[in-house]
């Protein structure tokens, strides 16, 4: 059933006509989603939340390229996210570069920092790499916080963007971000059908063996960091504009951890998994902040908090649920949402048996 008969079948984006039609329907749905949301408020979504979800999808894809496909751990992606956000805004306000050029420029700067962070990774692994990347994330935000140039502790106001003469609203950003997101997702899927992507996977499976087979470790490891940082930088630049205001306090270590959680929950080494993971975790994160408003559970939690816990800290339930999901996924479904999907698919393919 899944036998590939030629090389071209292996590098095809859509494996069959059914998959292609499915994806086209999915794109149409994504295209119509803002209207559906505006009309029905289905699941309590808003266009702002949709924007946030797509941005986190881009980060998760970028981080998955590094963690899931190349096997390097990074606990400092909030640093790249911050670099992307602040450089994009600075380029526009200080140098007057148009947004269309500022965003890729900032992403390349972020990729440059990714290359630099990739250098120590050549000799480090496991805990040593974790601390080095974590240090990078902390250093990036601390430098931004203390440099007057970046607005210091007060943060920066993102400039208004204009579409022709009309100022851009959330809905316009939705299509912009969606376009960039789809482009980057397809690029990521295609990347792993090329020599570069396969070198990444070889490094993940065994870096020594990969080197023996002629994979240049120095080049590909730093490249993986740079590509991952590029994705995160793009997402950061977009994030600055949907938030309207960026503040270095927001890009802390917890953010890096949530990015990592998205990737692991979605499934390591799967682009569609990253998208699913980022969607689920972002949605939960935003919705659980106001847990007392959820019908049913909310009232029980409120009375429980009044009796045994404290009312002021009820939003902390969100963190607890988040942590539990992370642990349960690793314990019971190491491949994440992608693993669940694979199991469902296999069950139906061989249905009666």
């Amino acid at each position: 059933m899944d036998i590939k008969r030629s090389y071209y079948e292996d590098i095809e984006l859509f494996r069959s006509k059914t998959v292609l039609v499915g994806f086209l329907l999915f794109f149409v749905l994504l295209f119509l989603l803002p209207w559906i949301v505006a009309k029905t408020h289905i699941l309590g979504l808003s266009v702002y939340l949709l924007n946030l979800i797509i941005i986190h999808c881009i980060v998760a894809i970028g981080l998955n390229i590094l963690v899931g496909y190349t096997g390097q751990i990074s606990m400092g992606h909030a640093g790249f996210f911050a670099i992307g956000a602040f450089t994009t805004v600075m380029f526009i306000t200080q140098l007057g570069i148009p947004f269309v050029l500022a965003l890729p420029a900032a992403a390349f700067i972020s990729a440059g920092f990714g290359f630099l962070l990739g250098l120590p990774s050549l000799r480090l692994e496991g805990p040593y790499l974790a601390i080095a990347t974590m240090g990078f994330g902390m250093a990036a935000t601390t430098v931004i916080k203390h440099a007057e140039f970046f607005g210091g502790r007060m943060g920066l106001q993102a400039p208004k963007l204009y579409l022709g003469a009309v100022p851009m609203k959330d809905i316009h950003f939705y299509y912009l971000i969606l376009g960039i997101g789809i482009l980057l997702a397809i690029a990521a899927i295609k990347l792993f059908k090329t020599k570069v992507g396969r070198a990444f996977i070889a490094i993940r499976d065994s870096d020594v063996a990969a080197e023996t087979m002629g994979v240049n470790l120095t080049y590909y490891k730093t490249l993986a960091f740079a590509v991952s940082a590029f994705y995160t930088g793009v997402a950061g630049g977009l994030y600055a504009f949907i938030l309207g205001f960026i503040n270095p306090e927001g890009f802390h270590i917890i953010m890096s951890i949530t990015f990592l959680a998205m990737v692991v929950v979605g499934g390591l080494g799967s682009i569609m998994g990253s998208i699913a993971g980022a969607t689920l975790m972002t949605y939960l994160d935003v919705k659980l902040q106001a847990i007392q408003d959820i019908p049913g559970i909310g009232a029980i939690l409120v009375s429980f908090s009044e009796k045994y816990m404290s009312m002021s800290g009820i939003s902390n339930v969100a963190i607890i649920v988040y942590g539990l999901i992370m642990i349960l996924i690793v314990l019971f479904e190491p491949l994440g949402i992608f693993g669940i999907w694979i199991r469902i698919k296999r069950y139906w393919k061989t249905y009666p048996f």
Partner: protein
Amino acid sequence: MLGQLIVSGLAVGSCYALLALAMVIIYKTSEVLNFAQGEMAMVSSFIAFVLLESYHLSFPVALLLTLLFAAALGAFLDFVFLRPAKDPTVIGLIIITLGFEMILMGLAGWKWGADQRSLPFPVSGFETYNFSGLLMSKINFWTIITCLFLMVLLFLFFQYTKMGTAMRATQQNKSVARLMGIRTKRIFSFTWALSSMIGAVAGMFIAALTVLDPPMMMDPMMKAFAAAVLGGMTSLPGAAIGGAILGVVENLFGGYISLAFKSVVAFAVIVLMLCFRPSGLLGKHFVKKV
């Protein structure tokens, strides 16, 4: 000025060293990077706070009960979450401990809110000892003394007790240790309990030196991790030395160069050191089999 900075750096550094020791003990035995160490210590400090403030117990009794709680918490986490994990990957293990961290932090925030409290501690933070001109606050002095004492105790435990020997055997080779009749799973739970107790002591000192609130351990925890890596992640003396070095360097940097970048300098030191010695100061570089 120089002496003062070094002394207070050593006091903070010994707290880092204790936390780092706790991490190293777990890492050596089970190759789990315990990111929840700081939050475990924070919850234990809160328990001590409740025992002292709400139940008005005397300090030694409260300390004893806190240590018991910490041991139970550590063993519980290992038993409930780490034992069921079937051959997890390195990243999977990191995610599990990050998950603990979030759960513990959420629980503490839910129960005690975001208020800053001060832990009633028997040693004053304002009175000072005067060692021929070198002023030293009492709490700094006792922090250093306690940490040194605990390190010696740990050394004796690992070297001369049956349990310590079993733990070292498990660290060296799990399967052979099992063949020799050591219940390695029980050793893991015991390791978590022990390291949680060490962390709790460090947490109480940090709460007394600063304030007691749910995010209080975030920064010390990362410093402790840095100290453990600096010392080589698998070496107990390395962790102690790493903690002391980090505390002093950080304080000197804060005192003479820039207070704003004080908390980053630790990571700069780490990255520089890792460039020259990729497995830490005292860590052994092991060659991986392919």
